C-alpha cells in the first residue's frame, strides 16, 4: 500500500509507492526516458473525467440536427436556384421578342432618316470634286502649249547652267584660299 509519508512514515511501501519513488529518482537524475515511463505509470492513478450517461446521445443529436439543417438549406438553395433559372429563361424569351421588335424599329427609324441625308452629302461631295477637276483641266489646257513648254525647259536649262557655273567659281575660290 502507498500512503502519504507525512501521515504514515513507518508503513510498508507498496508497488505504487515504488513507482512514485522511481519517477522522482529518474526525474532528479535527469533520465528523461525513465522519468517519462515511470511518470506514465504513476499518472495512471489519475482517473479520467467521465461524461454523463446522456452525453453520447446529446452529441449525436446535435450533429444530426446540424445535418438536417444543412440538408434543408441545401434543398432550399437548389429550389431557389431552379426557380431563378426558370424565371430567367422565361424572361429571356419574353424579352427577346420585345427586344428584337424594338431593335428593328430603331434601325428602320434611323436608317429612314439618315439615308437621304447621307445621299445628299455624298452628292454634294461628288459635285465639288468634279468641279475641282474641271477647273484643273481648264487651267492645264490654258497653260500647257508647245511654245510655253519649250520656254519653260529653256529657262530651267539656263538655271541649271548658272547653278553649275556658280559652283565651279566657288570651288576655284576655295582652292585659291588653300594655296595662299
Amino acid at each position: 500500500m502507498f500512503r502519504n509519508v507525512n501521515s504514515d512514515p513507518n508503513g510498508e511501501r507498496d508497488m505504487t509507492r515504488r513507482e512514485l519513488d522511481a519517477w522522482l529518482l529518474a526525474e532528479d537524475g535527469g533520465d528523461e526516458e525513465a522519468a517519462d515511463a515511470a511518470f506514465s505509470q504513476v499518472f495512471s492513478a489519475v482517473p479520467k473525467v467521465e461524461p454523463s450517461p446522456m452525453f453520447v446521445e446529446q452529441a449525436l443529436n446535435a450533429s444530426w440536427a446540424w445535418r438536417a439543417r444543412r440538408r434543408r438549406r441545401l434543398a432550399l438553395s437548389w429550389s431557389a436556384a431552379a426557380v431563378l433559372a426558370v424565371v430567367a429563361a422565361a424572361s429571356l424569351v419574353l424579352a427577346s421578342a420585345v427586344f428584337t421588335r424594338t431593335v428593328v424599329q430603331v434601325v428602320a427609324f434611323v436608317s429612314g432618316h439618315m439615308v437621304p441625308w447621307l445621299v445628299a452629302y455624298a452628292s454634294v461631295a461628288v459635285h465639288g470634286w468634279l468641279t475641282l477637276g474641271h477647273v484643273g483641266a481648264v487651267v492645264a489646257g490654258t497653260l500647257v502649249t508647245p511654245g510655253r513648254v519649250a520656254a519653260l525647259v529653256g529657262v530651267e536649262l539656263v538655271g541649271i547652267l548658272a547653278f553649275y557655273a556658280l559652283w565651279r567659281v566657288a570651288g576655284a575660290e576655295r582652292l585659291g584660299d588653300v594655296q595662299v
Partner: protein
Amino acid sequence: MERSDAELARDARAGSEAAYRELVTRYATPAVNFTYRLVHDRALAEDLAQEGFLRVYQRLETFDSERRFSSWFFQVLRNVTIDYLRVHRIPTASLDELEEDGRRVPVADQEGASPEELAGQRELASAMTAALSRLRPEYREVVVLRYQEGLTQPEIAQTLGLPAGTVKTYLHRARKEMAELLAAGGWGPPSGEPAPGKTL
C-alpha cells in the same frame, strides 16, 4: 476486429451514422476529460466537448487520413475550447475549487485491493489531480495528451501547433512541477532515505 479511427472517420464522412456513433462513443471520455482539465467545470466541459464533436462532424471532409485521428480530433477540440475561453475570458480555477477537485477524485475499485490500499490510491489520485490542476494550462494540456490520451510528442506538437522541442520542454517542466507539488503535499520518500528531489 475493431475498426480504426481513420476507417470510422472515412465511413462517417461517407454518411454512415453507425461509424460516427462509434467515434463519438470512443472519444466521449477523452474529450470531456481533456476539456475538463482546461475549464474545471463539468457541465461546461461537456458542452465544449459536444461543440467539439459537432465541429469534427462538420469538418470530416478536411480530415487527412494519413494523419492520426486522435491528433486531429484533439486539435479541433482544443480550438473550440480556446475560442470559448477567449470570448468568455474565463479565469483559471481557484485554489479552493482545485482542492475540491482533489477531494472528489474517484478511484476505480481494483480486484483484491484492501480498503487501506484503496484509500491510499484514492489519496494519491487526489494529490496527483490537485497537482495537475495547479499546472499552467499549457503544461496541463501536454500532460493529459501524453499520459492520459497516449499521444506521442510529435503528435502533441502537431495538435498544439508547437515545436517538438517545446513539447519536450513542457513535459519535463510539468513533471518537475508536479514532483514539487506532490512533495509539498507530503508525498516524499519515507524519512531516512536519500531525497530523490529537491524537496523529497
